[in-house]
């Protein structure tokens, strides 16, 4: 039987999603029997021209991880889209923007200034910054991918068939997803490859939640010893579980760390809006001063509530037409 062709590509990524393939453990052997990885920059040495040479739809599935920040990433994403039957947005960066999308809290100017010009460890008196068009020392023209003003998620630049969130998706999640793809047992296009329900469904600490939960003060983990059995919210420790998709097996909570929301939103595209709406309902505080005091316990609400989902957030997820 002919093997299925698969591609794995990384955009604006940390490499963790590529490593999650390794988390398959011995299951990789079975997958290797059925799948031929034809393009995987992290692990192989393919060329873009190899992909260009393929026929449209020749690749059965492309697993694309990472957010879209440069023109190269957009270009290759589009290339793989043409050449693939199925595209899976693999990992939270591709699904929602991920950690890189926190850069949307700053401007490109600000980022370049900090990274290349004015960070304490920079010595850059000529003020050299990456340019799309420049010349090498020998005078040859050099092109670098254009650095976009904003960080996008994968479906802002191409049509995505399935979403597998997680930072990164764990071995079980990847195995289940690959199994479903290979068996052709897939939900309708556009779906997530995980249940449409929030983490609290599985979490064994949910039973400790009182019927009338209120938060009088936000406590930070560096200040308190978290009770390993009680619901974090009930301890005043922010847990994104209620606004985060289930399916990861909640290893963080099992490790006595609250959920930070890496599996992205459920029932909505805007994880931050949902979480802050829920919190607003259960905070204590009648006067403006009291409310302000409680909210001061969350010094970076945008970063906290949109840690993984900024590109899927507030300002919309309009399909990008052309780059600014």
């Amino acid at each position, binding site marked *: 039987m002919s093997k299925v062709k698969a591609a794995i590509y990384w955009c604006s990524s940390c490499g963790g999603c590529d490593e999650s393939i390794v988390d398959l453990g011995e299951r990789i052997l079975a997958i290797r029997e059925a799948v031929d990885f034809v393009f995987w920059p992290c692990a192989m040495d393919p060329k873009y021209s190899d992909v260009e040479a393929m026929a449209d739809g020749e690749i059965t599935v492309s697993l694309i991880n990472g957010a879209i920040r440069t023109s190269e990433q957009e270009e290759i994403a589009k290339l793989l889209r043409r050449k693939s039957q199925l595209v899976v947005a693999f990992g939270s960066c591709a699904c929602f923007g991920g950690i890189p999308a926190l850069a949307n809290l700053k401007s490109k100017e600000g980022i370049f200034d900090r990274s290349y010009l004015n960070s304490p460890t920079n010595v850059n008196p000529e003020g050299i910054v990456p340019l799309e068009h420049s010349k090498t020392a020998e005078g040859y023209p050099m092109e670098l991918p254009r650095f976009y003003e904003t960080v996008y998620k994968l479906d802002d630049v191409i049509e995505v068939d399935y979403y597998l969130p997680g930072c990164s998706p764990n071995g079980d999640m990847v195995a289940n997803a690959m199994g479903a793809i290979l068996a052709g047992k897939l939900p309708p296009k556009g779906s997530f490859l995980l249940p449409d*329900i*929030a983490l609290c469904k599985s979490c064994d600490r949910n039973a400790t939640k009182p019927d009338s939960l209120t938060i009088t003060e936000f406590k930070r983990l560096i200040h308190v010893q978290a009770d390993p059995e009680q619901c974090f919210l009930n301890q005043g420790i922010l847990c994104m579980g209620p606004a985060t998709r289930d399916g990861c097996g909640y290893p963080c909570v099992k490790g006595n760390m609250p959920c930070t929301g890496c599996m992205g939103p459920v*029932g909505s595209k805007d994880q931050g809006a949902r*979480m802050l709406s829920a919190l607003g309902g*259960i905070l204590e505080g009648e006067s403006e001063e009291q409310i302000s005091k409680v909210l001061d316990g969350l010094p970076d609400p945008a970063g906290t509530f949109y840690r993984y989902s900024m590109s899927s957030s507030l300002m919309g997820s309009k399909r990008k037409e052309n780059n600014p």
Partner: protein
Amino acid sequence: MADKTTLFLCRCGANIADFVDLEALEAWAKTNAGVDHVCVHDFLCAPSGKEFIEETLKSQGSKRAVMAACSPKLHQKTFNECAEHVGMNSAQVGMANIREQCAWVTPDKVQATEKARTLIQAALNRSLLHVDLKPQHMECLTDMVVIGGGIAGIEAALQAAEAGRKVTIFEKEISLGGELIKVEEIAPMGECAPCLLAPRLSAIRDNPDITVVSGVTVTDVLGFSGNFTVKARKKARYITDACIGCEACFEPCPVDVQSTFHLGLGTHKAVYTLFPGSEPAAAAIDQDHCLHLQGKECQACVDNCPFGAIDFAQKDEVIEVQCGAVIVAIGAEVYAPKDVPRLGLNGTSNVFTYAEFERLTCSNGPTGATLTLRNGSAPKSVAVLHCAGSLCADGLSYCSGVCCVNALMAGETIRKQIPDAIVYNIHDRLVLSGAEQEGFMRHQIKSGTQMVPCKDLAGVHIMEQPDGQLSVTVPGQAKLLVDMVILSTGLRPGANAKQLAATLNAELDAYGFFKSDHPILNATGSVIDGIAMAGSCVQPCHAPQSVVMAQAAMGRALSRLVPGRTIELETMVSFIDPEHCAGCKLCMATCPYKAIRFNSEKKTSEVNEAICRGCGTCAATCPSNAITARHFTNDQLLAEVKGVLHG
């Protein structure tokens, strides 16, 4: 037809027509893909208008309608009825407010017309997403529970029994009567309190529909209006129903206990009733003081009881009652400012609160109504201090409004026994309303009460002299030297108010009194449907006010819960999708009516549609958007937003 709306434009005479170009709107609507038919009328709300609506809806076979007219707060109901007459569900009738919120506030006709257009488009968008709302009815229980057996509770219960309902009174003491049973004559007209109460208590005893459960604490009130379950824990009193209160066991009992009924001014035995002739008549044994129950040898009461009514093996009991409504009438506590040293209320001096003074002058009191000082002699001079411990930082911050008339009564009561007694009433402002109370004060003054005005009552100091007399320093007045001081104090919420409010999920105000649903239109209702209050637990009341509130509270409950009639429920209630609810319970925490309960089997939250009032707060809270706020769904709101912005 299924995806189109019938549009009605109302001219409202000149009210809309003069400010909005309705012809232009009609022309626009005719080309609007979402409109199957548009028509204009002068007054849609008039009889001719309503006929017109019904005829049009019928002839067009309309599935949905939008009325571009006045405010829905005015005529949504009117148009709903028209739709229902032709078999449409009222949820299919939308409105665009182009009068109050457009024609009347936009002077420029072009702008007004454009604004009306966008409002209409918004309503059209929304109407495509309207879903029929099913009218819901619920059967209800019509029996009542009253918590508290003072005058308010007694009257509420009698009211219910008169209407043929079964009613249970839960009383924390071992017998009924509350505060009024401790009074001899009710100020200002001097009605005899025992004469007033006795027939009411007999009526309660003799009525088979009224059950009194005394010596209880209410522990749970579960359910909702029309369907409550009230649970209470009845403490063992070690006396059976055979007891008729003959008191044969009292004298032989060797143990004396401070009587809380007598406010510490007298004692009773370990086996006791509050006073002779109490209702229920059965005695009780104080388990903390009874020798036998403390493990010592004593059978004195058993040996002397002609009815064998003592049962040392009796256990606490849990009583459960189903009812349709609960009336809370737990009264208030008379404030005794023991922690205010300047008032000298230390339990050994001849400073007494007015309530203690009443004990000393009441025939069911420890002295058989003979007023004496602690050493047994009669007081020859008495100072009555108004607002004692009230309107000050170290006491109650508010005026209770019912104490002044009692404070003036003191003089009359004293002079009945000690005609030559000197009585001073030290006061600032006097709270006396109506001609009767005013006349009463003048009568007291004529009879000898000396009014001592003082602008700084918080500066009044009372000091016990070595010989037992009391020196009263009154700022701005000469010092008084008297045999007895009576502190006229205010009322504050009872010690069990907080716990009961929590059990009921009722709200307390800033002072700890039960908060009314609406201070004018529903003073006896709580924010929870089916839970009402009467008497001093709401605000300090005197007897007439308590009775009025009790009759009102029970009256409302009787009108709402009628045997054979079902209750119509709110239709725009929330719905939680069990497939997508993760059971995170955050919605439960935000529901103002505790209308959401957790299904521990399915591990999901569920809305009780009988309690839900349709505010939608839960839908906004749900972190996974699993809650639909019927008739105000996210999609419907978004459709309106699109309509007003894009037209």
